[in-house]
């Protein structure tokens, strides 16, 4: 890291929750209490681990010290933290794809983005005002490891070109 203690990074925390009411809320509370920003929750309700727990993947934005405090509290609360800090994303990139998003297999697009780069899709919004058969748009938020933003954007661009989708990238330099 660059030693900037106030820098906000994106982190992924993998948890296993006991299948009881209120467990998810209990797991998420420390994030906001410690000043983190919840980006996305991937809650695999149907997928149960051999121990009967539900795997949950949480993406957050926080400073390094906030992140450490969050993981510490989760452990104190007896929440099963499977993985934290192993994947440490430092940058978040937003881009928008337009075109025949659904007809060109959105889930294939997303998995290929994750396969060809070290990025994780942490958020997805879809807008299809004319129905999914016409031009629609998808906004992706990607968590990217430090220094790999342009490489990731290149991968997304190649996939977009191949599927004839129109990509709008973020302007990263300056005060944009």
């Amino acid at each position, binding site marked *: 890291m660059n030693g900037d203690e106030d820098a906000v990074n994106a982190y992924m925390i993998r948890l296993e929750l006991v299948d009881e009411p209120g467990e998810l809320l209990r797991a998420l509370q420390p994030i906001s209490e410690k000043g983190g920003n919840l980006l996305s929750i991937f809650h695999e309700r149907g997928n149960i681990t051999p121990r009967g727990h539900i795997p949950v993947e949480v993406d957050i934005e926080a400073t390094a010290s906030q992140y450490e405090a969050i993981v510490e509290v989760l452990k104190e609360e007896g929440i099963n933290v499977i993985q934290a800090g192993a994947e440490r994303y430092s940058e978040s990139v937003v881009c928008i794809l337009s075109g025949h998003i659904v007809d060109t297999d959105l889930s294939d697009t997303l998995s290929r983005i994750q396969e060809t780069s070290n990025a994780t899709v942490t958020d997805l919004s879809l807008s299809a005002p004319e129905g999914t058969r016409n031009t629609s748009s998808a906004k992706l938020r990607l968590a990217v490891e430090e220094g790999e933003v342009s490489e990731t954007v290149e991968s997304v661009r190649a996939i977009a070109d191949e599927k004839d989708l*129109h990509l709008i990238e973020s302007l990263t330099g300056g005060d944009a």
Partner: protein
Amino acid sequence: MRLAIVGAGVVGRSVAELAPDRGHDVVAMGDSTSAVVADDSGEPVDVDAALSRKAERGIVGDADPDDVLSADYDALVEATPTTLGDAEPGFSHVTAALERDRHVVLANKGPVAERFGDLQAAAADSAGEVRFEATVGGAMPVLSTIEDHGAAHVDAVRGVLNGTANFVLSRMAAEGLDYEHVLAEAQDLGVAEADPTFDVDGTDAALKCVILANVLSVGAADDPTDAREFTLDDAEVEGIRNVAGSALDLAGEDGLTVRLIGEVADGSVRVAPRLVKRNSPLAVSGTTNAAQIETASAGTLTVSGRGAGGKETASAVLMDLNRLS
């Protein structure tokens, strides 16, 4: 200064109108078919009379257009329409003035975007100087800001450099209307031309970026004659036709918006629709232009203003004339 003005379009006419008040004498003025040149009495051209003739009869005077180039002027103002490729006839107008050791102020982007190397060479052999503030961002002081900081100390320039494209995108975002609808509206308002290709396909913004790239390239080179030269062919250009209304809606959810951004950085030139924060200084509305100049020691500087228009562009020409006198 004594001025000769080539080109009697909206910019050339505005320069002629504003010049007398700013202490300049117009000694010759012409368009592609006609011209007016001051006689030996020492009196400047009667600008009002010439512009009335242009409005009524389509000619500025009875002289030959070539007589403008041989008139007795200190600075030639080149305001003919931008042409690509060999940048003619603008390029020849510039060299004709430089060969006579006269200064040149360009409002025409062609010679600086397409033949920058040739232009530099012609200027190096002349006692005259070439300036071209008006070619990038109209009234915005972009090139003079770079000049004052020293082009060698500028790392990148990013900006909204086409008012028509910006009008269309900002209206699409604000009103939730689609591209075709807003473009038709822009044409009705006179913001977009009947053939809007040059603006909406990003060519105009790209030419401005190429000019900036040339200026930064010369600034960074130890020997200006070794500097890499850029032309429109070196620019990666994408216009706004494919920007979907649904993309603007999604951008809005995150406090973002889409602008056609020209970017000159790390030896590359790129024009494309990009996501910017809605509160970014580059997220200007309507036909306003904005540019961010990233300097080595002064951080990022932002300028914004009117990027087109007769008086606005003529103001940039007058800025250049002030620096010459």
